[in-house]
């Protein structure tokens, strides 16, 4: 049986030679992403801005204009309607009543329910979310903190484990991934909610995983080929790990693809974010973080010094595997 090979054996792509172009393109795209967030903003879910969300499933596709009119006529504030998942499901966003406590928000929900049940017989209400401004503020804070801690924590880990250049290049590449994901949400105006924070953290985790594999190979080769030019060495390492990089991205994309198509509408934004993150993360492993090592002045000598310390600490295991 002939086995499937996505990447031919012994590729020799000059990734490092392209780095100037890659950096320029990456910088441009990242700026564009940041600009998109600045200009269009993120379509924040009730999790992050507070408010009231009612999800209703109708027996047939409702006319959005009529629905909007029906809800506006209730005098419960400016509603935002959005089709959600299948055509029959609509999510209705309303501001929280400013005073009156839970009684007031209950009243709003009751009013909307009564009106819709009357005008659209057979409608069912599948979900309500009410988040007060105070809680949503905390959720934003916690979300931002979680992402920052993850990025910094991991950069510190790779700095301790390897040379500082690895820490910095990983940090830059991860920030790029996060910003690109935010840009994606600004452009598509998909709802940005708590689940998306989980997606961003997963992207961070995955992307790190990817970079670690390449970084690990670079270090291995630095010990193996002490005289080799750094550019050639990084090219060699990226090429050697390329089959794995592609294979793993494909398997993850297959799994996420299944989730996107069959996983139901609630998870759709989450999955879309993750798929984009995998693509961006893989790109940044190959083009950004490894090439950046050269610009940061990583040399075989600097690696030798640190690896001696690490090897002594780790015992003879590594030296033993050094012979080929």
């Amino acid at each position, binding site marked *: 049986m002939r086995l499937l090979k996505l990447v031919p054996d012994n590729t020799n792509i000059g990734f490092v030679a392209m780095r100037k172009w890659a950096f320029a393109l990456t910088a441009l795209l990242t700026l564009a992403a940041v600009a998109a967030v600045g200009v269009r903003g993120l379509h924040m879910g009730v999790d992050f801005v507070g408010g009231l969300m009612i999800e209703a499933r109708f027996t047939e596709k409702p006319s959005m204009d009529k629905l909007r009119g029906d809800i506006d006529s209730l005098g419960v504030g400016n509603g935002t309607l959005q089709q959600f998942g299948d055509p029959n499901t609509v999510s209705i966003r309303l501001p929280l009543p400013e005073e009156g*406590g839970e009684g007031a928000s209950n009243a709003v*929900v009751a009013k909307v329910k009564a009106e819709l049940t009357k005008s659209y017989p057979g409608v069912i209400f599948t979900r309500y979310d009410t988040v007060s401004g105070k809680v949503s503020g905390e959720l934003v804070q916690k979300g931002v903190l979680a992402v920052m801690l993850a990025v910094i924590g991991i950069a510190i*880990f790779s700095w301790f484990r390897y040379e500082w250049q690895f820490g910095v290049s990983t940090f830059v590449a991860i920030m790029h991934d996060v910003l690109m994901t935010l840009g994606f949400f600004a452009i598509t105006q998909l709802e940005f909610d708590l689940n998306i924070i989980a997606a961003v953290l997963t992207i961070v985790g995955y992307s790190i995983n990817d970079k670690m*594999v390449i970084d690990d190979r670079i270090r291995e080769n630095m010990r193996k080929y002490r005289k080799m030019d750094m550019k050639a060495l990084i090219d060699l390492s990226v090429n050697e790990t390329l089959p794995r990089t592609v294979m*793993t991205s494909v*398997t993850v994309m297959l799994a996420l693809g299944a989730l996107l198509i069959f996983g*139901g509408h609630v998870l759709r934004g989450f999955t879309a974010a993750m798929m984009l993150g995998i693509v961006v993360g893989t790109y940044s492993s190959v083009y950004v973080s490894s090439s950046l090592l050269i610009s940061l002045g990583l040399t075989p000598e600097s690696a030798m010094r640190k690896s001696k310390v690490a090897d002594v600490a780790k015992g003879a295991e590594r030296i033993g595997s050094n012979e080929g």
Partner: protein
Amino acid sequence: MLDFPRWKIWLIVSSLVVGVLLSVPTFFPERIYNQLPSFLQAKVNLGLDLSGGSHILLEANPAEVAKQRLENMEEQVRTELRRGDPKIAIGDISRRDGKLAFMVRDPSQVDAAVERIRPLTQGAGLTGQRDFNVEVVDSSTIVLTPTQAGIDTAVNQAMDVAKEVIDRRINEMGTREPTIIRQGSNRIVVQVPGLQDPAELKNLLGQTAKLEFKLVDIGANPAEVAQGRAPVGSEILPYPDNPSGVPVIAVKRQVMVSGEELIDAQQGFDQQNNQPVVNIRFNGAGGRKFGRVTSENVNRPFAIILDGKVLSAPNINEPILGGSAQISGNFTVKTADQLAIALRSGKLPVALTVVEERTVGPDLGADSIRSGIIASAIATAAVLTFMFLSYGRFGLYANLAVVINIFVILGVMALMNATLTLPGIAGFVLTIGTAVDANVLVNERIREERRRGRSVLQSIEFGYKEASRTIFEANVTHAIAGGIMFMLGSGPVKGFAVVLLIGIATSVYTAVVFTRMLVSLWVRRHRPTEIHI
């Protein structure tokens, strides 16, 4: 490589068998599951987004607790000094700036007054921390300043009581299996699976249910009352259903009898007009007090006050001596029933407001489970096929590891009594995708080593050895991200992190240790001279 001692094989196989077996009870239908012996009753719980239900986050305002404490303290000080023996005459007690301040009329009694107040300010805790600091200002004014520790203790106690009260109220509603957890210093999370319409629950939890009976001040000037001015010893309270049309009423400050002295409350109907009412019964002391006050005030009205609002102000037609009474008001059967529940379960020590609420209907939950299962199955099938096509026999080994891994994750979750949420399912699907990463790393490395001209055996050995180090480092960083999500995440993020963390641990084990065993057993038996990889 070939040296795989028998005990090691046994250890690996039996650990995986245990892991898989742990997941089995989760798949039993509820009816069978409930008949299992209790040590087998460990399964993965479904989060509210999958089972349907309500999640409600309640918050108390610590300032309100502090204010109540100040009022209580004022009452205690007044009783101790004015009514105690010997009497110490003091001026009006001010509650400005969250402190109690008052003048002692006779300066020679200041020290004695401080002496008498001190014991009142001793905290209940064992730390010896005082709840209030007592100071003398300008040689005749005593100031009581609450300490932060005292306020914290009070908030903590109030929240503990509130949690119990909520527990009783929800049980009275007949709702099954609620989860009530304190969160942070002043919040309570209530989760009720299967609840479709949380409005009723929110109304119930939103009621403090502080019930008081006070006499109506019939001597008050109606014009002044309407303007909000009360005679000395009386106060103005809102009375939305006042038949006279004025939405306020003047009542005496002194409490005749309060809700604390209730022993029962039931919804019923008024015998004359058939309106829904709440019938209440007092304990012995409460009944006697109520009897005495009603005998002294026949033909005068009294006010029934709930959470600072007057519900109704009926006339005392005759002394009410039996220890029971009727609360009338503008009730429906449902609101009367809710009030009865609230009164039976006691008053909340502090008002709670809903700051977050999430409700998922059972239809959406069932949909999510169905689509989650379909997506997982398709994702698994796609990944398995792809791995087999890419690595042949080695792919099959990896696939076996992935399938076992799925069950082991469920098993570990069941053991930990973890909750599976919708993002958790996403974490599951993602884990299926990343679990093969370890095998991809190993297999690609074996391919590479073969290309470099190593023998079959050496390639396999090197492949596992070199890749293991990479796998370990890559997964440590992955786990850092997962750990941060778990610590900081709330709700959905946490559910996702749980699955991710368990998945990282189990997938490294199954993908590295288990497949290595399979490969080495195969190599030992067949001694292949060439491998397809």
